[in-house]
């Protein structure tokens, strides 16, 4: 690894000041599971690394009337175990538990995960389906970013170099909403998903769909929402026909690349199959 200078700010203000003064050659270290690998492989060459470990307030997780708040430094392991997370949506806790291995889950943070912007990761998919908003801050301003607008391209976000992701916020779920996360793993259990699907639905007393969110991972350059598929379900019963139509629309919304996990056509087809399975589970 190339030499670099390391700084550990004691306060958020100090961290934001460091990011403001040197925007080109400074990178932020949260858990480090991605940053350290990319530095070892010489793909990232920061002159200075700002370590966040002393900013304990960014580790907080809380739930209440306004929904669920997850601090950027909460680790995947913490979130998989947190009663606030499981109480909000068991599928969200299971999403964090589905990431990689126990070692990665104990070290890697949700903020680092989101900022890394790997389209095959698990948490962004379920967080998208739960209408998450990212809250970022720079020395000059605070900013709320709907999660879908955080992801710009593979490994690229809309954060400015002087901005720090502080937390994600999830609004309360509609009454009676059901949530699921499906990860298609044809190779090994610690692999990245070939494709993954998170779905949230709510229905009225007649069984007609009043709320639908479908998000996909591994299916394009960014984790994506299948908005046409969502719209197609509103006002309908969640039966074989409406689910098959939504699954086809979700597959059509994907833009996968061919890689060692399959061809683009295969991943598109699997996006439809797993969207159908997700919706049937919570119909």
């Amino acid at each position: 690894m190339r030499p670099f200078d390391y700084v550990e700010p004691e306060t958020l203000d100090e961290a934001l000041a460091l990011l403001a003064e040197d925007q080109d050659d400074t990178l932020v270290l949260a858990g480090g599971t991605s940053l350290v690998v990319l530095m070892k492989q010489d793909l990232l060459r920061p002159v200075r690394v700002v370590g966040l470990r002393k900013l304990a307030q960014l580790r907080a997780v809380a739930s209440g009337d306004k929904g669920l708040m997850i601090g950027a430094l909460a680790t995947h392991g913490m979130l998989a175990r947190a009663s606030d997370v499981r109480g909000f949506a068991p599928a969200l806790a299971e999403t964090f538990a589905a990431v990689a291995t126990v070692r990665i889950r104990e070290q890697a943070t949700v903020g680092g995960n989101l900022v890394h912007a790997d389209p095959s990761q698990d948490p962004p998919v379920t967080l998208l389906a739960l209408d998450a908003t990212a809250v970022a801050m720079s020395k000059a301003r605070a900013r709320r970013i709907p999660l879908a607008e955080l992801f710009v391209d593979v490994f690229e976000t809309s954060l400015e170099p002087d901005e720090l992701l502080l937390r994600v916020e999830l609004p309360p779920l509609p009454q009676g909403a059901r949530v699921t996360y499906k990860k298609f793993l044809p190779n090994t259990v610690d692999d990245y998903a070939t494709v993954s699907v998170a779905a949230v639905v709510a229905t009225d007393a007649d069984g007609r769909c009043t709320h639908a969110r479908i998000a996909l991972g591994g299916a394009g350059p960014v984790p994506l929402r299948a908005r046409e598929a969502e719209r197609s379900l509103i006002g309908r019963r969640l039966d074989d026909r409406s689910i098959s139509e939504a699954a086809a629309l979700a597959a059509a919304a994907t833009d996968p690349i061919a890689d060692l996990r399959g061809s683009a056509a295969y991943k598109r087809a699997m996006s439809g199959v797993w969207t159908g399975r997700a919706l049937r589970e919570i119909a």
Partner: protein
Amino acid sequence: MSEHRIRFTLNGAPIERVVLAERLLVDLLREDLGKTGTKDGCSVGVCGLCTVQVDGAPMSACLLLATQIDGAAITTVEGLAGADGPSALQDAFIAEGGFQCGICTSGQLVAAAALLRASPDATAAEVTDWMMGNLCRCTGYYGIARAIAAARRP
């Protein structure tokens, strides 16, 4: 490039060292502190050979900067045995044939010891999930699974 004074405990003993910012924990342990039980395998956090416990939680020493463990309690395989010999878990690995070539064994032991402490009543499925990230190319895993199950019994 910058230098940092870090303090931590290693298998219960207090350690104080000045490290470069880019020093990895796995190199600090093996090269500076002579604790070569922790192996460096894939170097990208996948294989589990370098598993250590950081405040009881298993992590990859190849993915941690030494500065990140300032203030922490680190346990390596050298810390598992007691004054009177191998731990029950280590004895079980021997009795059940939980290793062949041995390269993955310290990581397997450190990961399994963390599990037995965090969830002494872990089910077989939970053991499998927890140990999934510690790869072994010899045993087929059955001996390792038997050893952990045996050590779990009171």
